[in-house]
């Protein structure tokens, strides 16, 4: 019995200290962000002086060339439509893949699955040229369209897998009663899918918010830059102002971290379902 107790205690100590080690860098980032630079210049773990201040956050929020106030607003203006549009488009198509029979369905589906692995670099040059021709370069509509198209494969895949787990009998009896496919989908199927839709929305929103590469090639006017694009701009060439940068980093990551904190269940379900099956 004593040996078992000892091993339990040891495992708990080990597990907790691993968690502690993992959180130390984030704690350091936080400590650097709320203190004047002079205090942390030889490491944020020096607490001989400790005068918490919001000054770094104010500086990041109102930065003269890369203000995060505008950056976060811009990121929201992209991320909200770039979440809603692909979820609508991809879930309705996912339903088609789950329930309808049509030729070349399997080939189409495998192609879509393979598209999930594509590197963004593979569409970069043509997308740039296409957007230039459509007059959508450096405009949010262009980036929203690209994000929507880019998100379709995994949302379609995820929703299709979810639809196939639903009992088909309800849909069949509605069909016997004369309801059209669209009515069945909107009135019967979608209401049963709210949890899956929330999972898909959480993941898609976080990916669009976190995206850097597509924004980098499509958006370049200084006032239009997104939050993730402004972070590298705050890094000076010769001198790195860690007070400013840590505050900015915390502001940019706050949105996904808060969403994760409140909707963790949906996030994990979405990720596990999207990665497996």
């Amino acid at each position, binding site marked *: 019995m004593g040996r078992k107790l000892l091993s339990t205690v040891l495992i708990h100590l080990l*597990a907790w200290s691993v968690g502690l080690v993992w959180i130390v*860098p984030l704690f350091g980032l936080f400590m650097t962000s709320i203190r004047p630079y002079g205090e942390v210049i030889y490491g944020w773990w020096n607490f001989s002086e400790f005068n918490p201040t919001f000054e770094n956050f104010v500086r990041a929020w109102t930065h003269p060339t890369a203000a995060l106030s505008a950056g976060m607003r811009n990121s929201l203006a992209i991320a909200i439509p770039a979440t809603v549009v692909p979820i609508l488009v991809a879930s309705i198509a996912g339903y088609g893949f789950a329930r309808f029979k049509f030729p070349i369905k399997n080939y189409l589906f495998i192609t879509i699955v393979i598209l999930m692995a594509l590197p963004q670099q*593979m569409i970069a040059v043509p997308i740039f040229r296409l957007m230039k021709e459509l007059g959508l370069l450096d405009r949010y509509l262009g980036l929203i369209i690209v994000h929507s*198209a880019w998100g379709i494969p995994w949302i379609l895949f995820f929703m299709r897998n979810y639809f196939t787990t639903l009992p088909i009998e309800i849909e069949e009896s509605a069909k016997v009663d004369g309801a059209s496919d669209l009515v069945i989908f909107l009135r019967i199927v979608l209401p049963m899918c709210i949890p899956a839709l929330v999972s898909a929305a959480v993941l898609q929103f976080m990916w669009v918010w976190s995206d850097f590469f597509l924004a980098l090639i499509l958006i370049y006017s200084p006032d239009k830059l997104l939050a*993730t694009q402004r972070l590298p701009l705050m890094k000076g060439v010769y001198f790195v102002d860690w007070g400013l940068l840590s505050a900015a*980093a915390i502001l940019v990551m706050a949105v996904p971290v808060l969403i994760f904190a409140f909707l963790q269940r949906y996030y994990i379900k979405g990720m596990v379902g999207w990665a497996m099956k």
Partner: protein
Amino acid sequence: MNPRLTKRLPRLKERLSQSLFLIPALALLATFVIYPVVYTVWLSFHSPSGGFSPLANYADVLSRREIINPRGFSQGFPLGALLHNFLWVLIHLPLTTFLGLVLAVILRNVKGGSVVKSAIFLGMVIPMIVGGLILRFMFDKYTGVVPAFLGLFGIPPKSWMVYPDTALLALIFGSVWLWTGFSMVLYSAGLGTIPRDYYEAAMIDGASPVRIFFSITLPLLRPITIVVVTMTILWELKIFDIVYVATMGGPGGASNVLALQMYFYAFRQLDPYRGSAVATFLMLLTLLVVIPMIRTLREAR
């Protein structure tokens, strides 16, 4: 009216209304994903003068120092973007997969395990551009915990990412911190699906915990291991944001990677042909990883 037509007409109408479900998604994909992919492959087969020379860009790119640098083997970093990506896979893949599995097993029976899991998983939640910035911060001479910690063992602190011989390694080891949460969460989900009876039966038979782990847990987690390994390799091949913000591939290309080099070719040197060759090559690598996974998982079902 022809009786056969009256029978077929509703069927046709249904077909038509059903295809409306698929058309918006397929049209978006065709225009903004598939057409660009084909276009990129086409570009990679052509020279700036417009001539068709299918392998010229690939031969050119693969013989360039920024992609493969043979002198690196005797002189140290840079080894070239391609080899840096391979190094990433070589070091990062076993570390994150193994660590994630161990943590999933340990944290299952620990009080507060879910809090620890959330803390570890945060690395997956934060934007990679922030992640790269934090890595730079962690390995900085003055503000970094890693140099400070190593200082306790008498290793003089330095900013790891400023020196060619340590920049890439710092990024790779640092990204273990960011990515371990992925395999941990998937393995945790997988462990939950293994029936308790298996363990009870094994314990009644007197199997040791180590034996149980290797004979029951590990084989039953095989599908998850396949997914974790595949997704992790994909992530390592496509890595971009972290390197861009932390080192910009430097110093002197010592931490360069393929995705970043593609960006340099196509958008800094304005050479879309060379850039497309790198992108297509990168895509081939990802297909090499993904297609076997789809095969195995389909067979398993």
